[in-house]
């Protein structure tokens, strides 16, 4: 399927929705009118039991139409993908903001008034907020069976594991063989997704079916879960998600969609909407806090002999897209370096915080923080250049990874050969661009000093999946209309990342059509497509694109077979381009598709469905499509105030082939700025004394703004292996690009170390934290 000569792939037409978004015509869920509005009474306590709840007064308020409490919901459990089975609403409240009651009323104002009229009595329970403390004997229990929930293979409590492990080689021997060992610990704080559009859901029940409008990354998962919950056919659940105002991992299926559906069911025929306030949306979900312990050993020559990593991850009361963070860590983190002996141990732990989900990869952003900080210290101890040390230990194209057999493998990842992996080339290009050689003076040696301002340079490297991660099933259908134009039905989900544009460009390229002749139906489960992973894991382009091209190949095959007798040639010699079929090398012997399909009297269509990637027959088994990311940054540190100012950033990744260059660059730049936010400004804070979240708005949770942004350049390395085609399934060689550049926060911390000689082992590096660290260091 790869082909170097492309006319549409590799160009940069505007995204498909550009005009309607620029003119304000694009409709988001909150732009749609509703009959009733929902507000939720949130728990004021982090851990409590409802001992009495009285809704009578609230129910009598004019305009109030329906109220829901745990007493109505019973013990209904939500069976999320890999989550612990979760109560929809519970008598036991597990975080500040947990759902006590939900009111539907004719206006939000009335619903809010009604909340004030609900009488609740609570029995306070002891709470726990630290994932390590939550595992200790005698810790407050959020669930009777314990606070750990690691489960990679199913969703039942019986399958629950205390931890998950991925290991290969002999870790003890690896450390015995090491000449130098560095041990360290990190506490990486949560980052909030903070999509500009808050969470929002609207539902309307008809006789037997329900229509749900939701700002979601995963419409097909929502359809499946709602059908399962209400015991109705999947086909009776319609999920509409026309425009999504950002996701970043924050818009998966939560409990709120079910609360809206339950209220709507009581108000049959009416549209019932729940639109989160900014505070509700910020506190709804975030990336987990990660407490990570690293231990890495190496020989004198720099070869890593053992890599040991143990992490405790705060998944909140109802959190994590997937219990058992292990596989995500492993695939996106540990395999960054090639070592014969490794042990990775993950503990996903419930605490009395709201739910945690992945954000631009499950745990890679803080995993890379821990590894890339430890690796620097190892290089320093070995008196090696940090770049040379990384290059020596990183995998290369064709390497078997992991290099030795798994000894423990809780997530059943196959040992497999890496396909193209130009990590070294990418690193060299990024470092060249920032001028590393001229600016790097060694560890703790600033590149310049100007009064109290010290300038430092730092870097980060990590590895990620290219889209075939776990081979999620997807489906697409292609209809060639009688006039030769094409209607594509795709299961892929647009959330602002540009996948709709990518899908249309791939279809146009493959069929030799101008972009205007491709129409796309998406964000609507009535299209009958599917995608189980959907807009997660940077996977839409590779997986959705692969399946799309398979469907197109089937359409082309039909066309060729129809055209061959008319043209008097074999089907293989028929060329399809620009709504005509013609004889190869004889474009004058042609026939318009309109006439060809017209003779049939109906359009031609085909669909493709299934798990692409390593499970798919035409993709060589045993190969993994992986890609490196590298970020380098220069920062100024003010020794008197602790303020860290990014001066220049170069972010690099490996998109394989860019389908739309501006879209890829946009993903790279956006991810880089999010990682600057994680590194420097976005500070999640909880006041334990008062049981209140302080970071509940954009004043106290500071997102990057235009003037915060330094000069950011990108290195977007294109390379397609036409010869070996290990992943011919990658559409035109294109790889997922949604997450990688968001993993570079540690480049900032490494640059700070370079500037001031102090290593910060937490995030964000606020002025306060940096200044304290400077003062601590000076009193040593």
């Amino acid at each position, binding site marked *: 399927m790869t082909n170097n000569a492309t006319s549409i792939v590799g160009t*940069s037409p*505007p*995204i498909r*929705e*550009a*005009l309607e*978004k*620029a*003119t*304000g*015509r*694009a*409709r*988001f869920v*909150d*732009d749609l009118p509703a009959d009733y509005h929902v507000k939720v009474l949130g728990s004021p306590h982090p851990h409590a039991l409802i001992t009495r709840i009285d809704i009578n007064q609230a129910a*009598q*308020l*004019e*305009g109030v139409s329906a109220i829901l409490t745990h007493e109505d919901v019973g013990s209904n459990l939500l069976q999320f993908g890999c989550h612990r089975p979760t109560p929809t609403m519970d008598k036991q409240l597990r975080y500040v903001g947990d759902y006590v009651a939900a009111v539907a009323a004719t206006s939000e*104002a*009335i619903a809010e*008034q009604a909340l004030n009229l609900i009488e609740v009595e609570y029995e306070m329970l002891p709470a726990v907020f630290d994932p390590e403390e939550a595992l200790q004997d005698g810790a407050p229990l959020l669930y009777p069976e314990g606070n750990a929930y690691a489960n990679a293979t199913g969703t039942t409590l019986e399958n629950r594991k205390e931890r998950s492990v991925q290991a290969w080689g002999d870790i003890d021997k690896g450390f015995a063989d090491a000449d130098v060992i560095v041990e360290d610990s990190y506490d990486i704080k949560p980052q909030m997704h*903070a*999509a*500009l*559009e*808050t969470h929002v859901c609207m539902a309307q029940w008809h006789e037997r079916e329900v229509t749900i409008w939701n700002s979601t990354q995963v419409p097909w998962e929502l359809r499946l879960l709602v059908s399962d919950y209400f015991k109705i056919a999947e086909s009776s659940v319609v999920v509409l998600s026309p*425009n*999504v*105002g*950002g996701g*970043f991992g924050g818009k998966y299926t939560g409990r709120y969609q079910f609360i809206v559906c339950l209220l709507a069911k009581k108000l049959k025929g009416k549209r019932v909407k729940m*639109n989160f*306030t*900014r505070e509700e949306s910020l506190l709804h979900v975030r990336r987990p806090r990660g407490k990570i312990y690293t231990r890495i050993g190496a020989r004198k020559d720099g070869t890593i002999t053992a890599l040991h990593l143990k992490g405790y991850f705060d998944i909140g009361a109802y959190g994590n897209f997937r219990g058992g963070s292990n596989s995500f860590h492993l695939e996106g983190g540990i395999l960054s370096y090639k070592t014969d002996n490794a042990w990775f141990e993950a503990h996903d732990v419930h605490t009395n915080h709201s739910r945690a989900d992945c954000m631009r990869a499950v745990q890679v952003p803080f995993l890379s923080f821990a590894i890339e900080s430890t690796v620097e210290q190892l290089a320093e101890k070995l008196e090696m250049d940090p770049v040379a040390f990384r290059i020596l230990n990183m995998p290369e194209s064709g390497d078997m990874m992991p290099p030795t057999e798994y000894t423990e493998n809780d997530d059943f990842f196959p040992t497999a050969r890496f396909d193209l992996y130009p990590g070294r080339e990418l690193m060299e290009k990024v470092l060249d661009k920032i001028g590393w050689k001229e600016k790097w003076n060694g560890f703790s040696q600033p590149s310049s000093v100007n009064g109290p301002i010290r300038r430092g340079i730092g870097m980060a490297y990590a590895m990620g999946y290219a889209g075939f991660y776990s081979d999620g099933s997807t489906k697409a259908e292609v209809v060639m209309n009688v006039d030769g134009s094409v209607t594509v039905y795709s299961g892929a989900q647009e*959330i*602002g*990342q*540009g996948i709709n544009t990518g899908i249309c460009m791939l279809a146009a390229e493959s069929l030799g059509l101008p972009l205007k002749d491709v129409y796309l139906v998406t964000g609507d489960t009535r299209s009958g497509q599917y995608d189980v992973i959907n807009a997660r894991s940077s996977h839409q382009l590779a997986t959705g694109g692969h399946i799309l091209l398979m469907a197109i190949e089937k359409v082309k095959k039909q066309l060729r077979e129809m055209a061959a007798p008319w043209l008097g040639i074999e089907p293989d010699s028929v060329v399809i381009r620009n709504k005509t079929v013609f004889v190869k090398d004889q474009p004058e012997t042609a026939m318009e598709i309109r006439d060809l399909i017209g003779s049939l009297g109906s359009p031609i269509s085909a669909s493709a469905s299934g798990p692409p990637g390593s499970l798919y027959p035409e993709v060589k088994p045993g190969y993994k499509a992986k890609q490196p990311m590298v970020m380098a940054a220069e920062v100024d540190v003010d020794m008197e105030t602790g303020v860290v100012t990014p001066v220049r950033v170069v972010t690099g990744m490996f998109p394989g082939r860019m389908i739309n260059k*501006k*879209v890829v*660059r*946009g993903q790279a*730049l*956006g*991810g*880089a*700025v*999010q990682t600057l936010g994680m590194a420097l400004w976005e500070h999640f804070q909880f006041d334990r004394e008062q049981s209140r979240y302080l970071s509940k*708005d*954009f*004043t106290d949770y500071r*997102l*990057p*703004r*235009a*003037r915060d*942004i330094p000069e*950011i350049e990108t290195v977007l390395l294109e390379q397609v292996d036409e010869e070996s085609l290990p992943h011919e399934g990658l559409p035109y060689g294109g790889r997922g690009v949604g997450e990688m550049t968001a993993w570079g926060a540690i480049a900032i911390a490494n640059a700070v170390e370079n500037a001031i000689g102090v290593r910060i082992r937490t995030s964000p590096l606020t002025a306060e934290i940096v200044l304290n660290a400077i003062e601590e260091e000076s009193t040593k």
Partner: protein
Amino acid sequence: MKPETRTRKLHLNVNGKTLSVSVGTNETLLEVLREHLGLTGAKTGCNQGECGACTVLIDGTPVLSCLRLAVESENCKITTIEGLADEETGQPDPVQQGFIDHAGIQCGFCTPGMVLSAKALLDQNPDPDEDEIKESIQSNICRCTGYTQIVESIQAAGKTIREEKRD
């Protein structure tokens, strides 16, 4: 029990048209635009003046419509994103075209406010430097693009406007 509301009839000049609308005295301009007038281009990103998604122009100046009462908005010209393109031809404003052509749009939720802030700048100064552009959108948060391509979009729009003026 019945919640209390007071209403008032207003005449608002929106996108060059005078519209009569009965509003609650406590309703914001954003609520009135979105819920009474069906102009949903202005977005509710925070409803507390921190994100800029609700930005509209009042007499050419960017205003956070979530912080302004509708009853304070008579006797002025309100421009929303819906009023920017040419009414007859549908031709987008050069600022909108800049965002379309230079990938200044990803999810699109900040776009209306972002475009209007940029419009106000370029109407005053069609040749701003990068710092002036960043200053003009400092009140508008974008979580997707990282701002660089937005700045480039505004630079391109300024160029178009300057060329149009020359012709």
